[in-house]
């Protein structure tokens, strides 16, 4: 449904996208995961025909993003990175406006947005600017869906939104997917990767990995030991000092430790840490998650990461 072929894009000195290629199937819920400035927004804007790529090409539903931009705009729904509805219009006025912009009406496509809109309908007379973060997001999604798009492009819909609203939002996306809408969604939250069919990990304008979350984590080369003790700060410092340590990063209440080779045993760490006067030590192997993978992939070209200016992704 979406086909991206060797797309590159630069803003003045910074290269935002470096020869990106990606294919997204019909009906897929595809994640684009990476930190701010990785190139997510640029890529989405190119797909939304809002930016021209410097080189390469892309098709949305078989339509070229440069030549057939008008047709694409009719068929896709888009939610930009920041809340982009009219704050001084009410919920209903926003929705009706966007419906008419796409030459349709709220009534015509009510069934598609019913479940989402239903939750904000009690406040349809309220100005959009007065809504809570979670409700704004629902309204924005309703507006993006009002013309029954085949493809939905969502740029960081869950950023700055609390955990509850985030969870609800992903539930809504799952339901939309059942209606055969192809969804490309970007997020800086690594834990959301598991909710996607497939994800593309993006960093510094390059795709680090594209696959299903489980395939990605299963390819993780090393072994991860999760460790805890009573003093987190000292634990991290001591683990990093361990002679066979490659990395030690906090993950929730644990520290995820990777060794320079796969021969580091949890028991070995326990002994070492006991020697450093840690108490209530726990150490055991765990399965890596997307965040572990991302960090691993990042650190392999870390030299590149450090020292490069922030991408002026948002103009």
């Amino acid at each position, binding site marked *: 449904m979406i086909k991206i072929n060797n797309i590159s894009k630069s803003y003045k000195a910074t290269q935002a996208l470096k020869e990106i290629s990606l294919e997204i199937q019909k009906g897929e819920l595809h994640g684009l995961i990476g930190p701010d400035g990785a190139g997510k927004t640029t890529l989405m*804007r190119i797909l*939304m*025909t*809002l*930016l*021209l790529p410097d080189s390469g090409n892309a098709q949305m539903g078989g339509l070229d993003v440069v030549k057939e*931009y*008008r047709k694409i*705009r*009719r068929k*896709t729904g*888009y939610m*930009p*990175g*920041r*809340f*982009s*509805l*009219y*704050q*001084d*219009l009410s919920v209903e*006025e926003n929705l*009706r*406006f*966007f419906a*008419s*912009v*796409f*030459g349709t009406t709220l009534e015509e496509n009510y069934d598609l947005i019913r479940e989402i809109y239903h939750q904000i309908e009690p406040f349809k007379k309220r100005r959009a600017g007065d809504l809570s973060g979670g409700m704004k997001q629902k309204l924005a999604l309703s*507006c993006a869906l009002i013309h029954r798009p085949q493809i939905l492009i969502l740029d960081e819909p869950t950023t700055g939104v609390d955990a509850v609203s985030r969870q609800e939002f992903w539930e809504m996306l799952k339901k939309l997917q059942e209606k055969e809408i192809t969804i490309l969604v970007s997020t800086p939250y690594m834990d959301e990767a598991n909710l996607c069919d497939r994800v593309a990990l993006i960093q510094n304008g390059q795709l680090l990995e594209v696959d299903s979350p489980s395939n990605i984590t299963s390819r993780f080369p090393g072994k991860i030991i999760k460790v805890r003790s009573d003093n987190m700060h000292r634990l991290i410092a001591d683990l990093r000092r361990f002679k066979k340590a490659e990395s030690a990063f906090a993950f929730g209440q644990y520290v995820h430790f990777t060794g320079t080779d796969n021969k580091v045993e949890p028991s070995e760490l326990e002994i070492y840490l006991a020697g450093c006067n840690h108490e209530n030590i726990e150490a055991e192997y765990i399965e890596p998650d997307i965040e572990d993978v991302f960090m691993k992939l990042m650190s392999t070209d870390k030299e590149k990461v450090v020292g490069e200016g922030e991408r002026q992704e948002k*103009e």
Partner: protein
Amino acid sequence: MKQLKSFIKKEFYHIFRDVRTMLILFGIPITQLLIFGTVIKNEISNVPVAIYDQSKDDVSLELSAKILSSGYFQLNENLGSIAGIDEIFREGTVKQVIIFENDFGEKLQREGVANVQLIADASDPNMARLVTSYTTGIINDYITKMHPNLQMPLRIKPEVRMYFNEEMKSAYQFVPGTMALILMLVSALMTSISITREKETGTMEVLLASPLRPVQIIVGKVLPYLLLSVANAFVIVFIGRLVFGVPVAGSFILLMLETILFITMALCLGILISTIAKTQLVAMFISLIALMLPTIILSGFIFPIENMPTVLQWFSHIMPARYFITIIRAIMLKGVGILFIWKETLILLGMTLLFISISVKKFKVRLE
């Protein structure tokens, strides 16, 4: 068409829900007009005048006495001949000379019409305008009071002449000038701000990603402000008439058509500004500095174009307001028809078309 309709509806929501927009649209024009008006209009008292009475009959003497006893004027000199007029104006001792023609009373009696000439020192145009209009007022008052029962209307025809500034360049001009300024400013400023606001809040990104065409967005932005600006023009003409007594001598419909043309031109200019400016602040700066100042200074609104250095005179030719001021002055004050102003109208029309086509061309269908 439905798209456009709902776009316009949306624009009206924006306008009516924003206090600041409403204030700029309606508050500023009215206050500006009143300020300009009152600054120019001030009370007069004991203005030195000279009288040259060629008939010295009952009527002319009575009228002279009435003028001098009004408190507005003070007799400086009774002239014996017309030759001294130039001299006393040069000295600056009097502001007005009143000349009664020969056989004033008799002519009034016999023909129903008598002439009195009012010559004012128009080096201070506002003062000159006030002085002559006060005098005219007193004369008219005298007629109606003296002969209330007369069937045939008696008329004393005050013939006003402006000395030094024959055409009285700035009197009565503040209404046409202010109208041009306000319409220019409000139209260009409001459209450019409302478009750049959409850029700033990110809603433009959504509009661009929709099937809306640039023309639809532009027309959707222009139409609401056109309507409001026309309403504004009505208010200005109305206040000019009611508060300052500025008449509309010519066709009101022609006046409004020309006004709509000028507003459309200003709106297109506003759109043009918004294609350059990325933020509301920049749009405001461009509108104020690049439009308002030249409009005030170079359009002939305050400073007569004839007195400007040649370079500035040349510049004034590209000021749309210059043509508009000429047009409305001609319609409102001189009462002329399209035959006398077709050239200016064509120039405005040309400018409008130019700005529209550049705007549509420059309006980006993408973000960069």
